[in-house]
């Protein structure tokens, strides 16, 4: 299994009469895209906007950020298999990537003050967020009448993915500027025998947030009752995994451009390690589920993947944090060396409040801080949101906290914030 990303840089994004990619200029036929998305009758309307790097703009509450991509027809699966496309393994063949652009979707059910995140394009947060440098096509879905929560979110998800594939489709048949090839089929080669075997165990949901029946997370599954599942690294990069509706510091964009998976692939290619694969898992709501999935994720990393080192990340807040600690402990118990990434839990900036596990063998911790980081902000010129209440709250913002900005305290490995103990 090998994935080739054909990279098409986007340096300008604007509305025009036709949707096409011309050099680095991506133009979007606003009405054509609108009509495409309105085929879903649960949507009454969709507002389409464009925001650019450095622009004095705030967008939110963010439902998801996706990189526009499209599969080259006839190579591997279709776009987002199990959701848009038929069931076929993602991560094989050729995928066109509109690098430098994003589809950013506003949550139609967002509630002000409920912990959601915004896309910030200007000032300190615009500079520190990895999304601040992208050209965003923003979608604000307007729901048709009384749509139930699950249906509203499902419609929003599908609109996000369709728009991504629609824009990505402009690159089909065009020459790419560069190619990135991810092929790990040399795992068995003789010169790799002495290298450490490293696996990645990643939570993709935390079940203290109950999923909707029609929520798409792993190949369209909502992950309810899910056991730890080995995945090839390129399946993450190519549409196999989506963020859940509870998207705390996780966006689909960084599944497609997964910082940890890409880092492991690069170190694999540099012959520093053997990247033996990944295990997708979920954090439990129930204690017995926690014990079971922790045990089985560790067991799969060891016996299915043959790892002797494991990187672990969590999905969401406190319960996933404890879950990941337990999984790492289970790994250590069967001889796997672990490194875990945790997010900032210490509201009082005390080390004693920072961790929800105390397993002494889990002693290699990357701590993405953020509770100390904020930026004073002037009022922004443009606010794009789903309702007046949120727009009002966004207009009144004087200080932006790092954790309230999409990307800055991201849990998929892109964050550059670390904590130091003083």
């Amino acid at each position, binding site marked *: 299994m090998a994935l080739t990303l054909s990279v098409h840089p986007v340096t300008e994004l604007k509305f025009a009469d036709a949707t096409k990619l011309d050099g680095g200029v991506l133009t979007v036929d606003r009405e054509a895209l609108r009509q495409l998305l309105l085929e879903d009758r649960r949507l009454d309307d969709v507002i389409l906007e464009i925001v650019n790097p450095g622009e004095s703009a705030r967008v939110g509450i963010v439902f998801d950020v996706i990189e526009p991509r499209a599969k080259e027809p006839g190579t591997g699966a279709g776009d987002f298999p199990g959701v848009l496309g038929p069931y076929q393994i993602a991560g094989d063949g050729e995928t066109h990537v509109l690098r430098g652009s994003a589809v950013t979707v506003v949550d139609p059910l967002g509630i002000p003050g409920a912990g959601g995140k915004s896309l910030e394009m200007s000032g300190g947060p615009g500079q520190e967020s990895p999304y601040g440098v992208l050209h965003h096509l923003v979608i604000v879905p307007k729901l048709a009448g009384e749509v139930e929560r699950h249906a509203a979110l499902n419609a929003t998800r599908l609109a996000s993915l369709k728009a991504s594939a629609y824009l990505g489709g402009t690159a089909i048949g065009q020459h790419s500027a560069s190619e990135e090839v991810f092929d790990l089929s040399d795992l068995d080669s003789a010169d790799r025998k002495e290298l450490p075997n490293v696996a990645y165990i990643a939570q993709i949901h935390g079940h*203290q947030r109950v999923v909707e029946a029609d929520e798409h997370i792993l190949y369209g599954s909502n992950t309810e009752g899910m056991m730890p599942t080995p995945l090839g690294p390129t399946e993450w990069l190519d549409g196999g995994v989506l963020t859940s509706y509870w998207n705390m510091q996780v966006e689909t964009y960084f599944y497609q451009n997964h910082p940890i998976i890409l880092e492991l692939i690069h170190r694999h290619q540099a012959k520093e390690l053997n990247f033996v694969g990944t295990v997708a898992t979920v954090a439990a709501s*129930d*204690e017995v589920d*926690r014990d079971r999935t922790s045990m089985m994720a560790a067991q799969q990393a060891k016996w299915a993947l043959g790892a002797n080192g494991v990187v672990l990340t969590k999905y969401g807040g406190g319960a996933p944090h404890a879950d990941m*600690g337990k999984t790492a402990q289970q790994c250590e118990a069967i001889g796997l060396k672990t490194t875990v990434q945790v997010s900032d839990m210490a509201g009082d900036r005390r080390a004693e409040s920072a961790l929800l596990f105390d397993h002494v063998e889990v002693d290699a911790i990357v701590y993405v801080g953020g509770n100390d980081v904020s930026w004073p902000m002037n009022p922004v010129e443009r606010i794009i949101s789903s309702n007046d209440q949120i727009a009002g709250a966004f207009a009144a913002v004087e200080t932006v906290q790092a954790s309230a900005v999409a990307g800055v305290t991201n849990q998929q490995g892109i964050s550059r914030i670390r904590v130091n103990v003083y």
Partner: protein
Amino acid sequence: MTPVAKMVGANRVIQGRGIVHPLGDASLSAAEEKELRQELVHRALEALETDITSE
């Protein structure tokens, strides 16, 4: 969360039925759920009646 309760040294810990409803279970019938809750509370009371010397 049971692991956190244990981490900070709580002495008498009864495992509930999940974070979203520690003393219930939405997938059960009303009668079954009540029985589950009775059982969990009963075990909590038993723990309170038990002398703890270590842990």
